[in-house]
């Protein structure tokens, strides 16, 4: 436990991101750390003297800062309960709680690091080769592995309480990804040509790598940082440019859709054209102990120095394969760090290479033709050894240097993810030692470092050209001269650059040590990769999966380049033949919360819902609606319907209005029954089947006039049925109009012996049996409200479905309750309805049917009219008819007191499953268990006996094909 304040920072600079007069305090474990506003967690901790930031995934080796750009796993920490936060990208806030992860008991003394000593027993794929004999060994080992694996722990409460993020949907003419020299130039050129530009950058300020680049990098004779800030100002002020900062493109999806993660939520940006000015990533070298704290990428060091003004160490050793190492060395010198030596893999460098000349002039030892072979130290760097290269391999001609910092540059991996996601061709450029785009399209164009040219001048020209070209493609007047002038200038600049570029990949020497890490995320070493190739995993895709290289938190950003080099070296294939792994989204990790957005939950409730709540109903969710299950005892409710009168809110029924000259023809085609001959004023039951003749839905069809039908569907299916109608209307060129009016109408079913008397008190419609027959529809007033009355009987009693405009639903409900008071009217819920309809043997589709049930299987042959001509499902139904019924839906009544559950099995005498209980209840009328069962037709016969397994015990039940209640339908017609 301690209090840490900042060690002295370097003299202030105009480029720094910190505010030196504003202090912020954060907690790091049990310590309190004071730092500057603008610091990231990483810079704050580094500035307070911390060097170890994390522990490796497999060996638990100590790890320090590496890339300082959010592209490596080395600074993953738990922040305010959320694990795997990139400390180098996260700006500090007062009171922030930062904890280390994957180490115990402390980051500095992690007991799990003992695993590091067992490396000899843990070669590539060791888990595939061990722990499976005897079989039980794996269940023990896997449980143990599960306990120690993983990086951070997710704090449930902190995670669940993260603020809701909304999604934004934007469109633009041109999306420019990356705000470095190329992106800024592209944005400006495009915007000046008259198109709208959206510029996205993941940093908080524009400028790309020039924000922290050494001052010797000039642009048109001026210090590049001055050029870039002038350019940034122009872009930010341009009326046609929208700049989005702190915004990470997580992927380029089909049709130029960019997913962009921002602190304000996810943006869907649809662009007519994209300019990928995404830059490149410096990557590590492989040498023994290249993962010690203090071994850093040169650009990481430059970020610490120039953006946070940290002095990264006392003495540095620089190892490089290209020019970049020299610029890092210059910055180190300026920051007061002694540069012990520069080991450059290139045998010689150009005499006009300013940076090298300056360094030599400052007395820095430059060693051409040398590679670093190992770092010294156990957790942090105390020295480094370089060796002369001969015949592409390091020799024993070694030199040792004491140092506390190693700056490495293994070249650049282009950040070409959105290009690869757009199927832009990528080919290997051996002069650059990098994969570069070799094709482009009008949809996406590359510009800047992502093309392999690491030169700000080339980048600005490429950007300008891309901006002008895109504007031209989008129909803007761009003078041909302007474009060709830029083209010429660019060609010259590119040639000049190419003439001078020198890169020499580092030697690959797997014998030089067992701790040469290729993949820092997964702790995969050079030796592992080489062995994997030797075991036959010679293509990069299988080798990736076998070794897990590129599969960790950085998704290959640090290791992909080296991985390809090693496979190429080991197999003799060219880098193009080796290819690359797939650039899968997201390009940077993104939280589930960001992706989910607000995740609105829509509950559907009927207009009468509030009445149900007041009446104390138990609400359940069914078919997307909230409905009353019951208001008390469902059996009492069922009894009330049988003996007196009950009402149920059936507003959830799907309701379709079908009109048109061919409306009848449409219904004939989509239902198995015939409806064109239905007389106005009559109602008919309808079954709908799919192409194969199996039941999709059922409902009632009421013909209101010659050219108008009113249809109800089951609650959950109305959208499907509506689309089904529209599909076939288009397919069969039927003239009809379908309107889904489900939400427009409330429906209440009043049923029972006293239903007529109750309803008569409210309506002028004549309800006597002879005036208003079963399966008729009439319009009239109910309680002074225009209503449609359908005389149907799902629950098996004489009753009416009253359909009224939704706004009157509650009023009618109340009026019915009042009118029925003298008869003892009772509201009933879904449960009582299910019991009642089951007694009457009325099916509920998808409860009593499944995707294979035909109308014949539910004994509804009468509802299938083959003589009407072709209709949906007729082919399948003919086959089914010919084949005969195999499984039939039958009623059953228990012999004993057991009541089966929905879903219980019907078993054969030998105890094998032969059928299923689709619905079962205790009948209030009969006092026994009963229901529907789907059984083989051989046992599904009137008077048959079946065995039903209830809670593990078989019980006998009698089969019937006739409804349990009012089998002849007398009561319905009364």
């Amino acid at each position, binding site marked *: 436990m301690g209090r840490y304040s900042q060690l002295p920072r370097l003299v202030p600079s105009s480029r720094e991101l910190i505010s030196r007069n504003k202090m912020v305090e954060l907690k790091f474990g049990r310590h309190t750390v004071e730092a500057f506003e603008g610091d990231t967690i990483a810079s704050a901790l580094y500035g307070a003297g911390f060097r170890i930031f994390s522990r490796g995934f497999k060996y638990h080796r100590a790890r320090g800062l590496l890339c300082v750009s959010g592209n490596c796993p080395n600074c993953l920490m738990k922040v305010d309960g959320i694990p795997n936060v990139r400390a180098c990208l996260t700006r500090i806030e007062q009171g922030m709680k930062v904890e280390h992860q994957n180490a115990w008991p402390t980051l500095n003394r992690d007991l799990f690091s003992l695993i590091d000593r067992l490396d000899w027993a843990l070669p590539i794929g060791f888990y595939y080769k061990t722990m*499976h004999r005897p079989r039980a060994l794996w269940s023990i080992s896997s449980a143990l592995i599960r306990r120690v*694996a993983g990086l951070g722990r997710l704090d449930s409460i902190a995670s669940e309480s993260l603020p809701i993020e909304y999604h934004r949907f934007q469109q633009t003419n041109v999306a420019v990804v990356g705000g470095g020299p190329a992106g800024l130039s592209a944005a400006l050129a495009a915007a000046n040509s008259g198109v709208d530009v959206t510029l996205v950058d993941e940093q908080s300020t524009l400028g790309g790598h020039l924000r922290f680049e050494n001052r010797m990098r000039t642009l048109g004779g001026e210090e590049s940082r001055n050029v870039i800030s002038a350019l940034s100002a122009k872009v930010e002020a341009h009326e046609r440019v929208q700049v989005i900062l702190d915004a990470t493109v997580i992927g380029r999806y089909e049709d130029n859709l960019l997913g962009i993660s921002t602190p304000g939520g996810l943006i869907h940006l649809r662009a007519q054209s994209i300019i990928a000015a995404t830059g490149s990533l410096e990557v590590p070298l492989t040498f023994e102990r290249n993962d010690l704290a203090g071994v850093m990428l040169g650009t990481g060091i430059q970020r610490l120095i120039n953006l946070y003004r940290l002095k990264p160490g006392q003495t540095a050793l620089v190892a490089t394969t290209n020019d970049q190492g020299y610029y890092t060395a210059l910055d180190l010198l300026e920051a007061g760090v002694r540069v012990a030596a520069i080991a450059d893999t290139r045998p010689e460098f150009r005499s006009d290479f300013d940076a090298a000349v300056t360094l030599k002039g400052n007395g820095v030892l430059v060693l051409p033709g040398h590679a670093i072979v190992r770092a010294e130290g156990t957790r942090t760097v105390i020295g480094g050894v370089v060796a002369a290269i001969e015949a592409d391999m390091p020799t024993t001609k070694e030199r040792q240097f004491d140092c506390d910092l190693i700056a490495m540059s293994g070249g650049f991996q282009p950040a070409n993810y959105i290009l690869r996601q757009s199927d832009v061709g990528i080919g290997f450029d051996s002069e650059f030692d990098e994969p570069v785009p070799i094709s482009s399209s009008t949809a996406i164009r590359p510009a800047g470092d992502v093309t392999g040219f690491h030169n700000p001048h080339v980048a600005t020209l490429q950007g300008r050209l891309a901006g002008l070209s895109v504007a031209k493609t989008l129909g803007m007047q761009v003078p041909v001269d302007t474009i060709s002038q830029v083209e010429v200038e660019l060609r010259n600049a590119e040639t000049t650059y190419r003439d001078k570029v020198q890169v020499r990949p580092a030697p690959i020497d797997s014998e030089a040590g067992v701790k040469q890490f290729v993949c820092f995320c997964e702790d995969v070493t050079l030796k592992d990769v080489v062995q994997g190739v030797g075991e036959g995993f010679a293509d990069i895709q299988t080798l990736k999966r076998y070794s897990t290289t590129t599969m960790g938190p950085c998704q290959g950003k640090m290791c992909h380049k080296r991985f390809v080099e090693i496979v190429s070296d080991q197999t003799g294939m060219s880098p193009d033949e080796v290819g690359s792994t797939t650039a899968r989204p997201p390009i940077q990790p993104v939280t589930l*919360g960001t*992706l989910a957005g607000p995740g609105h939950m829509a509950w559907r409730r009927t207009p009468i819902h509030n009445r149900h709540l007041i009446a104390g109903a138990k609400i359940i*969710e069914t078919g997307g609606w909230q409905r009353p299950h019951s208001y008390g005892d469902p059996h009492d409710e069922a009894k009330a319907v049988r003996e007196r009168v009950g009402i149920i809110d059936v507003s959830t029924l799907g309701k379709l209005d079908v009109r048109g000259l061919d409306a009848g023809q449409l219904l004939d085609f989509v239902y198995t029954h015939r409806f064109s001959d239905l007389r106005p004023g009559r109602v008919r039951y309808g079954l709908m089947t799919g192409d194969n003749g199996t039941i999709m839905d059922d409902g009632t069809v009421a013909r209101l006039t010659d050219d108008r039908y009113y249809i109800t569907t089951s609650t959950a299916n109305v959208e499907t049925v509506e689309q089904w109608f529209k599909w076939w209307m288009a397919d069969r060129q039927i003239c009809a109009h379908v309107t889904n009016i489900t939400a427009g109408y409330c429906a209440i079913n009043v049923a029972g012996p006293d239903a007529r008397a109750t309803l008569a008190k409210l309506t002028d419609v004549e309800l006597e049996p002879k005036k208003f027959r079963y399966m008729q529809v009439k319009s009239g007033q109910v309680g002074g409200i225009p209503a449609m009355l359908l005389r149907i009987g799902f629950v098996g009693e004489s009753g009416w479905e009253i359909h009224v405009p939704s706004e009157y639903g509650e009023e009618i409900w109340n009026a019915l309750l009042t009118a029925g008071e003298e008869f003892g009217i009772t509201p009933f819920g879904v449960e009582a309805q299910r019991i009642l309809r089951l007694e009457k043997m009325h099916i509920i589709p998808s409860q009593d049917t499944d995707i294979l049930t035909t109308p014949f299987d539910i004994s509804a042959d009468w509802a299938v009219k083959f003589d009407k001509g072709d209709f949906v499902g007729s082919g399948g139904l003919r086959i089914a008819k010919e084949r005969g019924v195999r499984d039939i839906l039958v009623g059953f009544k228990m012999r004993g007191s057991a009541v089966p559950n929905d879903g219980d099995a019907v078993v054969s005498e030998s105890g094998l499953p032969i059928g*299923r209980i689709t619905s079962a209840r205790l009948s209030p009328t009969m006092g026994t268990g009963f229901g529907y069962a789907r059984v083989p037709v051989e046992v599904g016969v009137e008077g048959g006996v079946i065995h039903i397994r209830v809670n593990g015990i078989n019980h006998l039940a009698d089969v019937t094909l006739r409804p349990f209640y009012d089998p002849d339908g007398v009561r319905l017609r009364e």
Partner: protein
Amino acid sequence: MVSQLFSRQRFWRKQELSSYYDIVIIGGGVHGLSTAYYLAKFDKDLKVAVMDKSYLGAGASGRNTAIIRANYLTPEGIAFMNASLKLYEQLSGELGLNLLFSQIGRLDIGHTESTLFWLRQRSEYNQLMGVESNLITPDEVKAIVPEIDLREGKPFPIMGALHHPPAGVARHDAVVWGYARGADRNGVELHPFTEVIGITKEGRRVTGVDTSKGRVKAGLVVSATAGWTSTIARMIDIDVPILTYPLQAFVTEPLKPMIDTTISSGELHTYIYQTERGELVIGGGVDHYPTYSHKSTLHMLEELATNAIRLLPQLRGAKVLRQWTGICDMTPDYAPIIGPVDGVDNFMLNCGWGTWGFKAAPISGKTTAELILTGKVPELIEPFDLNRFYEGRLINERAAAIAAAIH
């Protein structure tokens, strides 16, 4: 065992393509490779070649989420998948490779009465057929997954679950490599990066294949190409009732252990488990439209994330590391198609694996090999012939498939 740890033997050899094979298997995924493995194991004299247009396991075999379970709905499905599960239990030993098959169990959560109804049907049939599978209460769910939220009034309440203890997860790539290695050691030739571009026929008799590396004659051609089955079917002019749908999934960054089983919710079209490495694997239903494209979409990623959070709200802060897409050959009844095709001789289909192929690979390969060698259809796959679609003998496995988002 220790000697094996340090073995650097190649998993499989590089082969030159011959001009004739007794059997050519198109598709170097788990089904093609397991078929080849069992063929060669039962009859070492057969000349068998497996061809794949890409690397071994490049298709659905390397893209599935590696869940193995037998808690299906129909007697046909349960018997078949249970036989496969039993083979998986012994497979690491048989192939001499640890396939990392961890039997961490499976919970199918029910949020409504209608789902519980389907779950009960499965549990009853499972039990009657000797598969351990029980309907359990919300409290019992909580005991297995302490992370689950049982608070009242929350959308998608936990009303119960189907618990299937023998289910588990294996390393899917290892299954590919294990079968490939086993096949190779029994004399099968493996030809990755060898694309079949045509099938040669004489009359109704298939005589071989045209590949990107030349023409090859064959005594029998087996198509085991999952999502591309319809493209193979076109080569020999047959109709298969298959629509190819993409299926997407993602993993999160590695987290310390929080879920020790596989959890699925049919209503939310989501399933979640945590790998031994700590990554959460999250998948769901197939895409809404058929296509052969392997392109991942932002829309599905958002949908998967939304549904996962509805099941486990504490996953809000977990970070997606990588999303990917495979393609699935969906049949109308969510059951596979294995066997010969009427009117085409010397040809056999092994397809219709939709979203359930990985778990079936061992038994699929074994029974397909038996069928080829004996000419007799093994009882386990008798129900899965192509003719069932013409004769109205479909098998309803829809309710047991988490991917049942379509239709």
